[in-house]
């Protein structure tokens, strides 16, 4: 299979869907002439023109609302947030309008819109620019929340998102854009609500997504050399959550660690723990542990940021603890 970068896989998904369906439009800050702040949309303006690849002013609430209005009346807009941090000024549009229009209208008005962009910490960009927003959006019924960790998933899930008749919050790992991976030549649509077993193992189930996915895969490799066999599960969609795959794995390994970048208070990390303790209680040989970012606004200083973002050491320690290794 050919190797494709995560950012290029996302672009392929958008380009293919835009060729296929003239109602798909893309809008956001610097998506056109600038070729995308993170170059995800590079070349799309040239191919599709400025009627369909639309540079917006800095007005997230405005263009998110425009996308909702257009979506409920016949278009399939893709909104790019330069980063998800800036979605917070459009939170009302996503939560009150995109997520509720179908329900409020008694099922008359589906809202086929995709909100996408880079999520979570980058490198030393400080507290206002480092949010992992998945807890904010997974809390909301009426939204899909998707978070691919590999190029293949990025492409297949984004295509599904664009064809979905419902609002999708599509989170991309800021630090994953350069990651390379195999992506099939032929068309692939990856369904929502289906987790992926990223690594098979027998001793402990580790559930993770986004940037920590890379950390976990590395630690799992290392631990394998020490005879600890990790089964790594990437949920791929956080809402709906494929808890069955996770629970089945835990029934096999009897141990579970959840690793994520969002703050430890609540969120999908805690949701997964809840599902596992409910559905696999009798199978557990140890308390379920989480390795997460620290519970503070992101500091700028590199020494501190390195500690705050979930570290290899914390992942290793959590796995060792549930395995009662010392």
């Amino acid at each position, binding site marked *: 299979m050919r190797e494709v970068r995560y950012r290029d896989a996302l672009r392929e998904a958008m380009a293919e869907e835009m060729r296929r369906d003239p109602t798909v439009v893309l809008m956001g800050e610097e998506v056109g002439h600038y070729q995308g702040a993170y170059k995800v949309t590079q070349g799309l303006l040239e191919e599709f023109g400025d009627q369909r690849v639309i540079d917006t002013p*800095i007005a997230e609430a405005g263009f998110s609302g425009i996308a909702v209005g257009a979506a409920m009346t016949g278009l399939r807009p893709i909104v790019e947030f330069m980063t998800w941090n800036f979605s917070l000024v459009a939170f009302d549009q996503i939560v009150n309008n995109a997520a509720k229009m179908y329900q409020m209208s008694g099922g008359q008005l589906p809202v086929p819109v995709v909100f996408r962009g880079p999520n979570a910490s980058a490198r030393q960009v*400080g507290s206002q*620019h480092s949010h992992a927003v998945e807890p904010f959006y997974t809390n909301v019924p009426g939204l899909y929340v998707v978070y691919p960790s590999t190029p293949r998933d990025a492409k297949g899930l984004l295509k599904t998102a664009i064809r979905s008749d419902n609002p999708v919050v599509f989170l991309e790992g800021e630090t994953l854009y350069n990651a390379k991976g195999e992506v099939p030549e032929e068309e692939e649509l990856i369904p929502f609500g289906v987790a992926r077993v990223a690594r098979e193992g027998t001793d402990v189930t580790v559930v993770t997504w986004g940037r920590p996915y890379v950390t976990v895969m590395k630690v799992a490799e290392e631990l394998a050399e020490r005879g600890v066999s990790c089964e790594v599960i990437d949920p791929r969609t956080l809402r709906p959550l494929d808890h069955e795959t996770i629970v089945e794995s835990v029934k096999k390994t009897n141990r579970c660690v959840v690793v994520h970048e969002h703050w430890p208070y609540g969120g999908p990390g805690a949701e997964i723990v809840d599902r596992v303790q409910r559905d696999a209680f009798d199978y557990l040989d140890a308390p379920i542990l989480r390795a997460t970012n620290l519970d503070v606004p992101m500091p*700028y200083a590199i020494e*501190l940021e390195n500690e705050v973002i979930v570290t290899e050491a914390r992942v290793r320690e959590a796995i060792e603890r549930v395995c009662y290794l010392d």
Partner: protein
Amino acid sequence: MATDELLPLYRQMLLIRRVEEEAARAYVQGKIGGFLHLYIGQEAIAVGTEAAIQKRDAVITTYRDHGFALARGMSARAVMAELFGRDTGCSRGLGGSMHMFDRENRFYGGHGIVGGHVAVGAGIAFRAKYLQQDDVTLCFFGEGATNIGGFHEGLSLAGLWKLPAVFVCENNLYSMGTPLVRSMPAKDLTDKAAGYSMARDRFDGHDVLHVRDRIREAVERARSGGGPTLVEILTYRFRGHSMSDPGKYRTSEEVEEKKRQHDPVRIARQGLLDAGTPEAELAAVDAGVEDEVRDAVRFADESPPPTLETMYDCVLAPEGGLDA
């Protein structure tokens, strides 16, 4: 022209310029990380407006904040140490380039979300009015910010309540890679003041004394109960939007032409020479700035990073501390 008035302003602008040039170098060396938005080209605005206000007045701005931090009286050491992520920085290394703060000098940041601080600026002015204090708040932002809700809501309330504030748009013609013509239908963005029944002014921002004199009117209006003003100052940034911006949206000829015509530091230096200031005197000023900048870099290099304890201490303020 009074050279004794211009000389300190020239020195201040040069200090900002040199601190930022050294910051750009340190960024390339990996000593500074994240986003670094340079103010180079726009120095006459921070320095000129500062010259028109009092110490008790308040200033709040965007992520492009180093110039204001220095103009307000923050030391080059505190700026550089913050950029280096050190405990001795103005925000203890927690904020970084975009989040410089200095309560003592009434500099209220350093904000990363476009438009998010405009209403906060109005809030600082609200306090002044409520407590019948006579300070004025200057709130700065780029022209790109005048499209977002935060800007409009801030001005809406400031206009309604006649708050003692001056809202200053630094129009550097590009919002990241987007030229003004593609981001707003209005050519004169002070047209937006009309909707809030607010006074307005619009002028060129490359001559520091001109900036000082023109902004005075708006400051006096605010101080004397005449309400807020929306001011647009025309300027240009000589560097990319941030260090990671290759700047392909404008030609190097355009940038070079602007540098030739509108460099506020050069304009001030030439003004001083034309008014008879001896070259030797200016050279001495320049050398003093070099020393200050070199000292700041050394200080930042030698300072320790913040500790985890500092990080945890700065999440919530201790209860009861404010009234103590």
